């Protein structure tokens, strides 16, 4: 599971001003649960996920992934998570099998298990035909499958997916959605980010709405509907934004 507590990331901008990309964020994601980080571009979704995957260091606050602290034990954290994003690249000159094997070795999967694991995943994702072709030769959909295979080769208990459907056609995007449901069935913990409301609505067990680095609202889709009396997630999102603006203005007046 993932526990995020008061996570904050400040970037120093060129003009010397501080930018709070992620501002005091706290939430949790359980085993067998799909949690969606929902927010517009620049809301802080990617920064949050990069901190959880230990690529970026938080300015303050902390988080644990599968019980391991992201600052103290980054190695263990990375070993326990599979990371996939919409723009993760692949090595164009290598074959799908070479890439998957490379990552398997980095994740300390034993040589014996690598072969069986690859064939298992290949049949699961229906990618046996192009396993030994160079990435350069593959279509976008095929590449996405290779990326998925790469991210789950070590069978991680946690999946972090940063807008994995961005720029994909309907069929390929569907592959991803199916894959996420499969992860849930295997009782993995899935953290998924998107700016597409409908996508969140369809797959999320729980939604964490973030805006300008802060949590706007948290809960299930049903809860949101009951609270606001609205039916469309777009409307609900706008409603929460307006609400937080009003609150800020009230604070300013005080």
């Amino acid at each position, binding site marked *: 599971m993932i526990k995020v507590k008061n996570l904050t990331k400040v970037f120093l901008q*060129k003009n010397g001003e501080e930018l709070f990309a992620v501002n005091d964020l706290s939430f949790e994601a359980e085993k067998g649960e799909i949690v969606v980080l929902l927010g517009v571009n620049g809301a802080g979704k990617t920064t949050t996920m990069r901190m959880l*995957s*230990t*690529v*970026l260091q938080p300015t303050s606050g902390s988080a644990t992934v599968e019980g391991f602290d992201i600052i103290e034990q980054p*190695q263990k954290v990375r070993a326990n998570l599979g*990371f996939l994003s919409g723009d*993760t690249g692949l090595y164009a*000159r290598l074959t799908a099998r070479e890439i998957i094997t490379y990552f398997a*070795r980095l994740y300390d999967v034993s040589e014996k298990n690598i072969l069986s694991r690859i064939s298992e995943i290949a049949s699961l994702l229906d990618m046996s035909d192009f396993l030994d072709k160079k990435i350069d030769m593959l279509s976008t959909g095929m590449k996405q499958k290779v990326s998925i295979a790469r991210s789950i080769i070590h069978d991680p208990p946690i999946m972090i997916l940063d807008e994995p459907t961005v720029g994909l056609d309907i069929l390929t995007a569907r592959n991803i959605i199916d894959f996420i449901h499969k992860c849930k069935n295997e009782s993995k913990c899935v953290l998924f980010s998107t700016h597409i409301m409908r996508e969140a609505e369809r797959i999320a067990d729980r939604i964490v709405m973030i805006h300008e680095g802060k949590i706007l609202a948290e809960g299930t889709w049903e809860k949101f509907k009951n609270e606001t009396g609205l039916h469309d997630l777009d409307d609900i999102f706008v409603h929460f934004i307006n609400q937080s603006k009003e609150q800020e203005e009230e604070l300013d007046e005080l």
Partner: protein
Amino acid sequence: MNFKKIFIIYKKELLDLMRDKRTVITAIVIPIVLYPLLMIGFTSLMIRQESKLEKQLVDVYIQDNISDENSQRISQALVEMENLRIKAENEYYENMLEDNFIQAFIEINDSLSTSGYHVFKVTISYNETNEKSKMAFERIRQKLYEVEKDFVTERLSAIQINEDILNAVDIEENNVAPPEQMLGFLLGKILPYFLIVLTLSAGAVVASDLVAGEKERGTLETILVSAAKRIELVIGKYLTIITISLITVLLNLFSMYLSFSYIISQSGVDIAEIQLPISNFVLILIAMIPLLTLLSAILLSISTYARSIKEAQSYQMPIIIGGMMLAMISIFPAFELTYGFALIPIVNFSLLFRDIMMGDFELSKFFVVVGSTIVLDIIAISVSIKLFKNESVLFRTVEEKSLKFWGKEKKNVFSVQFVILFFIIILMALFYLGGTWQAKDLMNGLFKTQIFIILLPTILVLRISRSDIKKTLRMNYTKPINYLIIVLMSIPVLLLAAVMGKLINYIYPVSESYLEGMKNLISVEDKSVWFSLFVVALVPGICEETMFRGYIINAFKKRGFWVSIIITAVLFGILHLDPFRMIPVTLLGIYMGYLLLKTNSIFPPMIAHFLNNGLAIILGNYSDKIPLLNKILEEDDISIWMALPSLVILFLLLKLFTKMNTNSIFVNNKKYIDS
């Protein structure tokens, strides 16, 4: 660090690179295919061209103005020459020569002879820039020597003297250098240059692909979230660059050896005789590895910093060009491997290579070269690792670059970008314009340089940007006591600068002509002391301080007290266009920057600058008249002894100065603000 993981990364990178056409071509195909072909082709072309020139028919015109029996013997000898055709008489011979219609014009005249013997004056006109004409000239001259010898022999026998009387000294050339040393000498001059350039060019291609390339293709994040540690990634990539560079170097050495053998065998020399000892190659390889790893680490750092392959390549350019220039040093015979040079990377390897090839090197210097390179190597690789761990470097986004320097905004001319550009333009103007002016007339040129290249552009920039000049330049009042302390400090400062100069001179000896030039600058022989003081001390004090401590230092304000002082001082050092004076001048720059920021007034550094230059002039010209001063300046051991007390005095005075100026503008040492 897990070595198994490093090896996994290393293996993958090699596999990836071996499938990249660019890498394979630069690292493997070019060394084993292109260079031998070029070398062999070029040599055989040269040989052929030369023999072709020798056999070429040349047209000449002979004008015999004496036409007696003897002079006709000369022209007859020329007529009998092979591949030489005498053209019909024509008075426009100069035009014909220029147009290459004839290749030489020979005029035979009488000349005065003081001893009663007849002397022919033969003028050969030819065109040096024309290969054919030059060749004709050499052949004709050779023929005329033979004719002269005949005449002399005849004259000697006429007065019954044996012609052996001319052979007073019989010179026999005996070159004791064994053939392998001769070959080593030749190879030692050019090979280091080739090796360094090739290492750099192969390493550059690989390095730019390894990190900047991953950023460009979006694979960097994927690898960062994998279970590998960053240090393992850096080391794995680092080893890859080293391996590819090493492969290139070995392939090059091998292909060069074969090409040389081929050329030598073509020229008919027995190759079996001139085997180079294998131990030399082993030594070179041992010395090459630290250098190779150093260059790889530098290239890796650049690639880590750059956002894209293209950006990495443009940052690599100056490194490659600089490396090429340093590597060329072995071609110049004047440079010897001293301990000073042994500390400069690339230069040291280049010179050591030459010494090893000639079988004549000192082991101690070998260790200094290898050791100093290893130290730099460790620094460079830790920079790479640090960069790779720095998230703002790894996730650097594309910055917006504005070229609107001349906009109305006041802020722009104080941006680092603009100041560096300004500095480079001034540097170029100084180099091209100032150099010409000073070559014409030193004093006048110096004056013009200071006013037109240094002072006026600075004022102009500030005017155009509508800055408050008085405020920017810090033309502020400061306590009179400060001036007194500065006057007192000027003496230890000057002495320390002199000692430092001597120390540098000791490590990197400079030529006599250089010292002569420096002396001319401060000596007043043909001009008055006042004039010298004006041009060499007062004017630079005002102009250079205005540019550096007045304007440039403001750009680095945000970076803190010491950083802004040091960067400005280094630029100040560079502007003096003299590698030997760079260090003392930079230290002076730091001193003057300190005076500026502590007093918040431009006048103290101006005075200090004036005093430093002025005292140098006075000491340079009057030291003869004061025996004690002369001793301090001339004798080495005394001046070294002067350094310590000077340092102590300067330190105490600086402390006093700092204390006097504590109520200044600083919040702390990291940040300071304008009053």
